[in-house]
Structure formats: structure tokens, C-alpha cells
């Protein structure tokens, strides 16, 4: 059985309640930190752990905390629970099943950063999870883990859950902060970064749910113990939400470094492709990361086995590699039309672009229109090159990474499956739809 840090108690009945969580050792990390560690020592443990942000970009959490401007008395710690990337549904599961783990992590992070008010910004559609979290927060207050003078330590913290109104863009951390302030959720132009100017103009750290949920284990077992799990610079475990044409879709916790082939085919994880079909392609880290054809997801271009780790998935750059991203693992068998799948993704990015900057606002809509024509049998060969060009001119030219997220799937689908686009044009229809 692989190492379980986040999901180890997930099947215990009543885990979402304070009693059960506490009985299983919950909140001991908070007690330990408040009693024996200074805030800086907590940050030190997180640095030692090598924990990377699990929201997609993979930025080292301890390093990010180190950037926070400590000269400012008011600082904020914010949890990014907006999880809206197609294919990613790990945070929803974790917070719903084990809300106290997230709350305990929030207390640890807030203590380390010196935050007195902290926020969990949750996607509007997850209202039922918000209810679960609010109940758990009430329990934490009742039991003295939130509020004034937590467990006699002198440290006080208030924790709030704030629902968004259902916009993917509000998962981008500065759009999230705008939305939290009650404004339109437009990403801010950086610099300044949130660690200097964040929520209400004060230094702020935004972390993903899964990043924060790893903190209690790190505090209990030490940063070095965490760094001993995983492979290379990919430390610890990662939640993977697996979906698509596999026998066992779901949320899995893997030790980083697990071979992709084992993840797809072993019965412990995805259990192989449905109906014994052939694997065609995988989008390994949520809809925005480059799609890879079967031969490149199982092995790198050099012929080495591809592993579920930040480094191995990125091996080969965007030419032959991809990214671990947020861990949304979308598997497609040979019945899948790549053009249609891309159209679905592109429709999403068009729909979710905030519209602030012209390349993303105009490019995403244009891409969707062209793909619609190709899929419907009205495309031309020139359209394929035009798509590549639009993607190239959106990428890197925008205020926030949503532009890149919209461009990468287009560029990679055409890079690896160009013949399939050409076939749509030649036949003037989708070869796979009856």
C-alpha cells in the first residue's frame, strides 16, 4: 500500500466531525506548533519539506511564505478552494470528506505567517462543501482551536469561508483577492505580488487546499520526513483526480514518482482502459497542460518510463512532455476525437476569460469559432495553421496565465495529432462521429 498522508483516514465514518478527527490525532499539529515552535520555525519545517504548491504552478510553498513582507503588521493567509479546472476534482473531495484537516492546516499556515484573519475562498458551486466547512469551523471554535488565545498560546485567529459566484478566473490568485474584496474578479497586473500587496493592500499568501492540507503531517512528522517521500524535487504525495475512459475513475493519493503506466493500468489505481480499449492520449494535469499521445505519456522521448512527478512529466519540454499541473488526469481511449475534445476545452476558456486583455479576450473566442467549423466539417487546411498562430500570439502576451492555459492545449493537440485535424478538413466531417 502506497504512502497515505491526506487520505489515510478518509474511509473512517464520521471523519468530518470534530470528535472523530480529534480521536485520530487531529489538531495535535496545532498544539505542537503553538507550544514548541515559533512562527519562523514552522516556516522552516515547510521549507525543509520541499512541499510544492498543489494548485497547478508547483511553486515551493516555504519559499513563497518567505517572501511575505513582515514589516506590515496585518497579513493574510488565504486558501484557494476555487477548483474549477476541467478534470480537477481533488480539493472538492478532500475538503468534503476531511474538513478539519484543511482547518488545521489553515491554523498552522496562519500562525507561521502571523495572520489574524484567514479566508477560505470556495467556488460557488460547492455550496454543500461550504456548509460542511462552516460546521467544522464552528466545532473548532467551540473546542478552542479558533478564536481568541488558542489553547492559551496567546495566538488568536478568526477563520472565514467565502463563496465565489462560479468563475474559473477567480481561482487565479489575484482575481481571487479582488473577488474576496467584493470587486469584479479581474486578475491584477503583477508586480506587485500578493506577498507584498495582497488582500486589502496587505501582504498575503494564497495556497491551494491540498498544499494546506499537507501542513499538519509535516508539522507532526517534521519537514525532513516529508522530504524523504517522493522522488527528486517532487517531494511527498499528490492527489490525482483520474477521469475519462478508465475502469476506476476517482481521487487517488500517489507517492510522487509512481510510474504513469502503473497508475493507469494497475488495479490499485485506474484499473486500465474501459472495455479493454487502446489508450490514445492523456491530459495529465488538468485541461490546460499539453496533451500527450499514448507513447509519450507512458515513456519519455528518450525511452525512459514516464513517472508521476513534476520533473518526469515535464521531461522533453512542451515538444514531447507536459506538466503535473493540478493533478487532473484525463484519459482518452481510441474512440476519442481529439478535435472535439479540444473544442470542449477551448469553449471553456472562451467562456471563462475575464476579457481584460485583448489577446485572451479575442483569441479564445476566435479559437473556439475555428474549431467549431473544423469539427463540423467546414474547416480549411489554412485554419489549422491559423490556430497555431493564434495560440502562439496569445501565449505569454497576457496579464494572467489563463491565456497560456487556453493556448497550450491548442498548440499541443495540433503538434501531436495534426493528421486528425487534416482528416476533418479532407473528409469535411468528423471521422469518428457516426
Amino acid at each position: 500500500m502506497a504512502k497515505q498522508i491526506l487520505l489515510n483516514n478518509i474511509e473512517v465514518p464520521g471523519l468530518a466531525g470534530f470528535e472523530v478527527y480529534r480521536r485520530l490525532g487531529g489538531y495535535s499539529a496545532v498544539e505542537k506548533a503553538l507550544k514548541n515552535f515559533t512562527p519562523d520555525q514552522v516556516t522552516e519545517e515547510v521549507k525543509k519539506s520541499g512541499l510544492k504548491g498543489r494548485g497547478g504552478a508547483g511553486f515551493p510553498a516555504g519559499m513563497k511564505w518567505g517572501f511575505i513582507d513582515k514589516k506590515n503588521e496585518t497579513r493574510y493567509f488565504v486558501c484557494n478552494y476555487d477548483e474549477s479546472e476541467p478534470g480537477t476534482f481533488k480539493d472538492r473531495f478532500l475538503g468534503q470528506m476531511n474538513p478539519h484537516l484543511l482547518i488545521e492546516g489553515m491554523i498552522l499556515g496562519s500562525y507561521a505567517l502571523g495572520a489574524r484573519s484567514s479566508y477560505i475562498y470556495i467556488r460557488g458551486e460547492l455550496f454543500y462543501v461550504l456548509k460542511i466547512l462552516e460546521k467544522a469551523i464552528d466545532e473548532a471554535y467551540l473546542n478552542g482551536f479558533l478564536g481568541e488565545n488558542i489553547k492559551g498560546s496567546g495566538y488568536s485567529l478568526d477563520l472565514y469561508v467565502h463563496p465565489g459566484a462560479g468563475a474559473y478566473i477567480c481561482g487565479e490568485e489575484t482575481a481571487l483577492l479582488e473577488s474576496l474584496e467584493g470587486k469584479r474578479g479581474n486578475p491584477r497586473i503583477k508586480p506587485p505580488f500578493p506577498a507584498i500587496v495582497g488582500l486589502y493592500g496587505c501582504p498575503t499568501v494564497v495556497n491551494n487546499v491540498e498544499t494546506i492540507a499537507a501542513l499538519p503531517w509535516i508539522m507532526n512528522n517534521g519537514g525532513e520526513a516529508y522530504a524523504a517521500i517522493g522522488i527528486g524535487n517532487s517531494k511527498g504525495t499528490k492527489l490525482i483526480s483520474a477521469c475519462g475512459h478508465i475502469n476506476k475513475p476517482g481521487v487517488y493519493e500517489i507517492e510522487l514518482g509512481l510510474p504513469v503506466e502503473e497508475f493507469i493500468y494497475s488495479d490499485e489505481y485506474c484499473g486500465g482502459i474501459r472495455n479493454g480499449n487502446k489508450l490514445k492520449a492523456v491530459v495529465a494535469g488538468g485541461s490546460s497542460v499539453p496533451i500527450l499521445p499514448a507513447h509519450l505519456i507512458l515513456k519519455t522521448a528518450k525511452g525512459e518510463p514516464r513517472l508521476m512527478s513534476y520533473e518526469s512529466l515535464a521531461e522533453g519540454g512542451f515538444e514531447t512532455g507536459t506538466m503535473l499541473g493540478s493533478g487532473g488526469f484525463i484519459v482518452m481511449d481510441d474512440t476519442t476525437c481529439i478535435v472535439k475534445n479540444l473544442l470542449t476545452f477551448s469553449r471553456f476558456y472562451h467562456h471563462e476569460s475575464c476579457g481584460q486583455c485583448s489577446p485572451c479576450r479575442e483569441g479564445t473566442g476566435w479559437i473556439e469559432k475555428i474549431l467549431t467549423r473544423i469539427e463540423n466539417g467546414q474547416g480549411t487546411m489554412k485554419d489549422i495553421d491559423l490556430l497555431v498562430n493564434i495560440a502562439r500570439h496569445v501565449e505569454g502576451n497576457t496579464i494572467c496565465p489563463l491565456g497560456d492555459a487556453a493556448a497550450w492545449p491548442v498548440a499541443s493537440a495540433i503538434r501531436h495529432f495534426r493528421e486528425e485535424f487534416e482528416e476533418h478538413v479532407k473528409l469535411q466531417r468528423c471521422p469518428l462521429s457516426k
Partner: protein
Amino acid sequence: MSLIKVTIDNIEVEVEAGTTILNAARQIGGSVVPPAMCYYSKLEGSGGYCRTCLVKVAQGSAKDPRPMPKLVPSCRTTVQDGMVVQNITSPEVMENRRAITEFLLINHPLDCPVCDQAGECHLQDLSYAHGLDETQTVEERRTFEPIDIGDKIKLNMNRCILCYRCVKVADQITDHRVHGVLGRGDHSEISTHILKAIDNDFSGNMIDVCPVGALTDKTFRFKSRVWFTKPFDAHRECPTCSGKTAIWMKGEEILRVTGRKDKYGEVEEFICNDCRFNHKEIKDWIVEGPRTIERHSVISQNHYQK
């Protein structure tokens, strides 16, 4: 204030610390100045949206000579000592600017023949300088119905490039912002929450800052093509603003009153609605003399007196 050195397209200039690349380029002037469709020096926090001003930073600073990995918006990037910037000398910049010009045009109605902004439109200038010869789009453009926002201002959303300038005017110089951006993506629109809601002493400045013909003066609409009118600097005693304006004449008639715009199309000072909309008689004004327009507008260059 200490001066720092920056090189733009091989021309060296010394500027105050904290200056943006765009403003450093404006100090040099001429063709090295990147086009700016959303930045407006008189509006705080403007810029960063349109991306027409993207430039390449080939050397970050004397201390850290590494180039910046992506093109940067020159209007929102401050210079560092020893920075080396490429604008028109970078093929990459020129290629991307052309693409961005195209992005701005794919949903634009191209209705210049019936647009009051024609002749002083920044999008016209931009597409003339950077546009493609033939359109690559066969796609339908988004459309909105023109609406009145306030009794003096017409909004034609089809022409809007979402530069956010009018939103910032309303935020920063009127006492109550009642319009903003609704919706998102290429279907977001400038709108009032209530139709015709804009009623404010300074709201007319939205018209002056609009780089395209999305916001136009209803008291001037369709009276004349801009290039048949002649601008004069004029002033009057005004209790609300400085009273210093440009009046646009055709023969003896004042067709329009605006702020005095400089060569970047930016007004020197914001003016009040009373000056702008209610004083169209020559006796209302003390005329100072013809206004020289330095802007090299596609259409204007043949018609404006120099």
C-alpha cells in the same frame, strides 16, 4: 532625484527612477514610442490591458543583465538602470503587435464611414501602421445595440476595445461611478446598471478618453466628419473647471467642444460637461488661436493644419 540610463532601440535616454518604459520612450519621441491604446497618463492605474505597447527587454539592468523571458507591457514596466529595450528594432515585438492589432479588429465592426471617431481614432492609426492587408476571419462579429448612457453620450459597444479608460475616468474624476464592465470575455460590455443613468458634471470626459468611437458626443453626432472641422484653443470663465478647451469649428459654427489633446491623444486637462455640451455659440468663448495637432493620424495628416 537621481537619473537612470535606459536604452530604447539603440537610443540612450536618462529618466527619473520609477519612470515606465513607455514614458521613457515618450521622452525620446518619434517612432520608438510604442502605441498605447489603454494607458492614459492622467488616469491612475491605467494601462496593461490592450497589450499593443508590448516591448522586449533585452537586458534587465546593468546589475542583472538577463533578458526578461516574455514581452512586457511598456506602460506598466518601470525602467532599471542600464535596461536595454527593443521596440521597433525587435521583429518579435513587431510580429506580436501585428497579431494584437488583429485581435483588436476581429470583433470590430469596421464601420469607419459612419463613425464619428473616424479621423481621430487610435484603432484606425494602429491598424494602418500594423494591420494586415487582408482579413483572416470569416467568423461573425459580436454585436450589441447602441445605447444612450446619459442624455449626452452614446455608447456603441461594437466598437469598444475594453481599454477601461472610461471606467477609470468615472472612478477617479466623477463623484459617483454608475457604469462599468458587465459580463466577461469577448461578451463583456461597458454598461450602466440603469439605462441613461450617467448624469454627472464631468462624465463627458469619458468621450475624450475613449480611443475609438464607442463613446461619442450626442450633441455632435453625424454633424460633420472630424477632418472638415478646425480646432481652436479657446477658454471661458467657468466655475466648475479651468474652462480651457478646444472648440471645433466649421465656418462660423462651433460643432463640438473637447479637452485639449496632445500628440498622444491625451487631454491636457479634464473639462466639465457645461463647457462641453452647453456652450456652442462663438460669443461664449475667447478664442486663442488655431490648435496644432501633432498626431500623425491616418486621415488627419492630410487635413489638419500643421
